[in-house]
């Protein structure tokens, strides 16, 4: 109705574009995009562009390293000595030998996980715990493997613990004469049973040479004079005790036997040697009077 001419008052109405722009600006998601997303993206882009130079990156890395070293070498973060607990003198020496870091060192440089796995790789260490005392001491608590038997594989001798893990290599059997000797493939998987058998054979200790794993399933106890007690797969200890009882009652093992076969515990069998068989026949012939056999 009222025409606004060019020389008259300016049209107060917003143009359609201005109107739409204002409505767009008042849209909450658009405002968020402009006020939060866009500045963040711009900053990220600028930072990326700045870092993109090789020289700048190198100096930045050097700076970061300097700062890190400055912090890491504060006395509060330094470790000056090592204390080892639960290890014998030989093992402690071994741990100190393989310990990869020289003191004083910063806690930032101590990779406790790696040191722990390094120590646990030692044969005679079952497990190790490492922690840094609030002072400046790195404490290592070692759980040592205890050798319970000697295992012979071919010509090699080694001490093993009750899990069958190797503790130490031996050059001679006499080094650990106190431990029972185990022989045979798979002997390391049945160490507790072997120990129980050895304990049951305590009265024969002087004669027991060792235990042989047969077919990875049962044990033979080998005595001197080439005697052998063949034990069953199950209840080997009971069978051993039965043999000991026989020995007590009838001096079984002091006779000229090749083997006592207990593989079937309900039917113990004795294998005699050739000389003993001849002797037996001779005695029987005497008894029936045919002296000149």
């Amino acid at each position, binding site marked *: 109705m009222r025409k606004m001419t060019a020389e008259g008052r300016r049209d107060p109405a*917003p143009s359609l574009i201005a109107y739409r722009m204002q409505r767009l600006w*008042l849209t909450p998601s658009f405002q968020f995009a402009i006020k939060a997303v866009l500045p963040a993206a711009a900053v990220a882009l600028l930072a990326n562009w700045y870092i993109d130079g090789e020289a700048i990156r190198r100096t930045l890395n050097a700076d970061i390293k300097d700062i890190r070293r400055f912090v890491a070498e504060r006395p509060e973060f330094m470790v000056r000595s090592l204390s080892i607990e639960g290890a014998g003198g030989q093992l402690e020496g071994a741990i100190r030998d393989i310990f990869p870091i020289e003191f004083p060192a910063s806690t930032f440089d101590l990779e406790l996980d790696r040191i722990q796995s390094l120590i646990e790789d030692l044969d005679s260490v079952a497990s190790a715990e490492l922690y840094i005392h609030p002072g400046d001491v790195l404490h290592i608590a070692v759980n040592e493997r205890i050798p319970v038997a000697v295992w012979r594989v071919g010509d090699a001798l080694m001490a093993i613990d009750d899990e069958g893990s190797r503790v130490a290599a031996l050059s001679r059997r006499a080094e650990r004469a106190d431990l029972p000797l185990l022989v045979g493939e798979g002997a390391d998987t049945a160490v507790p049973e072997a120990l129980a058998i050895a304990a049951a054979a305590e009265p024969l200790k002087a004669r027991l040479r060792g235990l042989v794993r047969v077919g990875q399933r049962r044990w033979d106890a080998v005595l001197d004079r080439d005697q052998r007690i063949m034990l069953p797969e199950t209840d080997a200890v009971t069978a051993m005790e039965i043999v000991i009882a026989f020995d007590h009652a009838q001096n079984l093992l002091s006779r000229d036997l090749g083997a006592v076969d207990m593989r079937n515990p309900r039917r113990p069998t004795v294998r005699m040697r050739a000389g003993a068989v001849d002797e037996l026949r001779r005695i029987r012939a005497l008894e029936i009077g045919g002296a000149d056999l």
Partner: protein
Amino acid sequence: MRQLYESQRVMRNMRRSAMQRGVVAIIDVGTFKVACLMLRFDGRERRSEVDGVSSMAGQSAFRVVGAACTQSRGVRLGEIETMNETERAIRTAVQSAQKMARVRADHAIACFSGATPRSFGLTGTVNLTDIEVTEHDLARVLAACEVPDEAAEAEVLHAQPVNFALDYRTGLSDPRGQMGKRLACDMHLLAVDPDPVRNLVHCIKRCDMELSGIASSAYASGLSCLVEDERELGAACVDMGGGVTSISVFMKKHMIYADSVPIGGDYVSQDIAMGLKIPATTAERIKTFSGGVVAIGKDDRQMISLADGSGDREKDDRVVSRSELIGIIRPRIEEILEEVRKRLDIAGFEQLPSQQIVLTGGASLITGLQDLAPRILGNQVRIGMPLRVRGLPQAASGPAFSSSVGLCLFAAHPQDEWWDFQSPTELRARKPLSRAVRWVRENW
């Protein structure tokens, strides 16, 4: 009728979704000004623990966060005449309101005063299927109202059931659950010419907003200016706008009649401009600052300068006494009031128990109206200010904004309209299966 149901239901659903989203724009497209209020709905109102009444008597569910008003353009007699100009005016108002509110509105509720509103009183009667009145019976009785052909062609703005009668008892506001045999209903239907409504819808769509409600400004002014008792006992609200003076009569809390007189405050300015041979803007200013309708002796001596900076001394030196100005203004105001009186007489206003008349709207601000109006309209006349709503700026709380405020109330607490009831079976011809199910359910 089907179409009416559907379009109004679409608008109602849009209004609900807009209220859930929180922001609605109120646009009052008037002849003199375009006002835009931004409403923010922030949840349920808090009620007092003592008496269960909230501080704002139920109007605190929303808050006005933006208000703007601009000179209207391209509107004549309350109808859009030049679409582009009106669109610009609406855009100006909406933009500054949005700027103030700092939020955009996607839904708008609009009111306008033109398009020759016509009131129809409809009556419908049905026999109840059951002894008790059910929701379905209400729908049936509403559907039984016979719509005159004239109204069927027009656009229906409001269709409100105002009274229910059950057998021989009348004056029931909610007959649901009551026992009876025959249910009758009186409905007030306000119809307007369809084309101006379409123009308005289109105009608002061109401002990138969805129209989610439309009301007659007569109804909106009545909502905001009449107090509860007046609306209950019977009162008329006369909204004296720029181009149109609209009348709404309320009774028992319902609008029962609405009409409009196509004369308004702009005519007064035009009379002054023609009578004193000055530009329309100067005439408007003189009317606003010095206008009045009752002259006293002192007014002969009070001279008003007609200078408008034209540079022509003959024009700029002219003066006019205030009594002369009043002599121009008064006949036009009297004409408006007499026209209003006539319309009220046609409507049978004197039969109401109380005959309160409330004048509001921008033209009611003229000095001396409270002395002039009783001579024509009777003793019970007052100048009405719209209800105070939260957040409304002082500049937008005068009588000129009564229909905007009324629209706020309309948006927050819409009265039950015809289409808010369950739509009756008769109109659901498209779903025979559900009809069969319903028939089975009702008969066994």
